């Protein structure tokens, strides 16, 4: 299956992915409604986008009491708006924190992800690889200063 692969070292924090995502998902350029979110690291010296990994368990999907989350033709866990009642069980079940609310989640734009298309530095690519923790190592390196302050 093709998934969104994040290359955090290439992200410049331009937020074009958020704009493209919100437009594709809602028809509006409104980053607050995007289901990919860019986080700053080390006082805005570096950035990385964060979104659904399309995990194997599909915690959101199995938690949904009305079967409103299914697997789309491209393998994405996808919310069926006409079935969803808005109970938010998916938001509390997803242990990655990648359920949003309106709209709920990444559906890989039906196989043509707008975020990957919009990224000018190829920090987001759509590839046939096993999904993974794309940000962990990067974040560990780029948070040393924050951690030093906590001590």
């Amino acid at each position, binding site marked *: 299956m093709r998934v969104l692969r994040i290359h955090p070292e290439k992200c410049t924090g331009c937020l074009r992915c958020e704009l493209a995502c919100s437009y594709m998902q809602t028809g509006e350029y409104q980053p*607050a409604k995007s289901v990919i*979110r860019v*986080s700053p*690291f080390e006082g805005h010296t570096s950035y*990385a986008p*964060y979104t659904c*990994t399309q*995990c*194997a*368990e*599909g915690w959101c*999907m*199995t*938690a*949904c*009491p*009305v*079967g409103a*989350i*299914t*697997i789309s033709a491209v393998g994405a866990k996808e919310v069926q708006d006409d*079935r969803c*009642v*808005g*109970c*938010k*069980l998916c*938001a*509390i*079940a*997803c*242990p*990655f*924190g*990648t*359920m*949003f*609310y309106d709209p709920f989640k990444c559906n890989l734009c039906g196989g043509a992800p707008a975020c990957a298309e919009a990224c000018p530095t190829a920090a987001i690519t759509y590839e046939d690889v096993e*999904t*993974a*923790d794309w*940000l*962990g*190592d990067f*974040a*560990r390196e780029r*948070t040393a200063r*924050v*951690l030093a*302050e*906590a*001590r």
Partner: protein
Amino acid sequence: MAPRHLIIGGGTAGMNAIRTIREEETERSAITLVSAEKPYSRMVLPYYLDRSIAESHVFTATARVLRDWNVTTHLGKRATALDTNANVCTLDDGTRVEYDDCLIATGSSAVRAPVPGADGPGVHSFWTLDQARGVLAQIQPGSHVVMIGAGFIAFTILNSILSLGAKLTIVEVAPRILPRMIDDTGAGLVQSWLEQHGVAVRTGAKLTQIDEVKNRRRLKMAAGGDLVADVVIMATGIRTNLEWLKTSGVKINQGIVVDERLRSSAPNVYAAGDVAEGRDLITQANAVHAIEPTAQEHGRVAGANMAGKDVRYRGSLIINIVEVCHLDVASFGAWDDAKAETASGVKADRPAYRRLLWRGDRLIGAIILGPSSDIWTTNDVGMLKGLVQSGVALGSWKAHLKKNPFDIKLAFIATKTTGSLLPETILGRPSKAPGETPVAV
């Protein structure tokens, strides 16, 4: 002969078990379902109450779906006895159903406050579909609704009652609202929020009697200040449906004691959901977790084992979330563990609160509260669940979170929690999508 599975109870646990048996079995089995009600989702009833969905939307498996799944049904009947020596279940109409293995998933029922008048006209429970119909028929715009009890169930229908144009008063006998879901600080913030949205809240208030007066209800309070209501809803707790098992010989503590495969003391009898006392993920002790996500996971694990797989359950995590007037309120795990090390933070400018609880450098529980419109509230809810569920070692991030309890995301990502969660599945394989007829053989 094909194995004969008997599922007793058509709620979340039972339906998840049936689906999983059909997904996992290697030999086509005979499945019989006994259920007092047609299978529906209790979680959805608040949205039926506020008329945002039709009644037909609440059902989890229609007669056609059950036929597609090749399930023999006894609907509208209750199991009254289980003979675990003869492997026979007796129903209230005298029907005897033989089984090779069975799942007890009979759930729980609403309990009313034991006061005179509690069973009178205009006094409702809100637990079953039938009870939801009763409440829906009674609430008119301008009705005064008094909710007795301020727990999770009550909170799931607050928005619905308000959106029907009713006036709402909440009465709670405990000193705070949501006493089994959040702490004093959180409850105080939620109460103020509700009052700002026109809801009257009385805590530490004990109801003593309900009288019928000119077609309305007068509620006598122990400390005076009687209330007059058009509709009274008793959300005063639930009791697990276990009485019918007294002679079964199945070991019952707070619930039916089950092992990591959801098996009871009788090896071919499983239990799942509200009636089961299974492993708690955090304490590793047995506990009853009468919540929807536990019923789902129990049902799936029991179903897989009944289908001949060997699936062990790590344990269930207490998780609760409600949204009231666009305020998200959630708690996880050991949020009330008095012995845990804690940190908390409140925002000055809005009702936003985080409370984090640790054992060593692992998060064992959390409370989170914030406006639904805050970009990070919903994501923090999930990440807190992930930190508690994975039990990831936070190392020096613990000190960071103690100083910055709102900075969940950074700690989540940098501790590689994603990597430790990705391999985890409940059934040891990727989940299948709902909506298709699950047929392995």
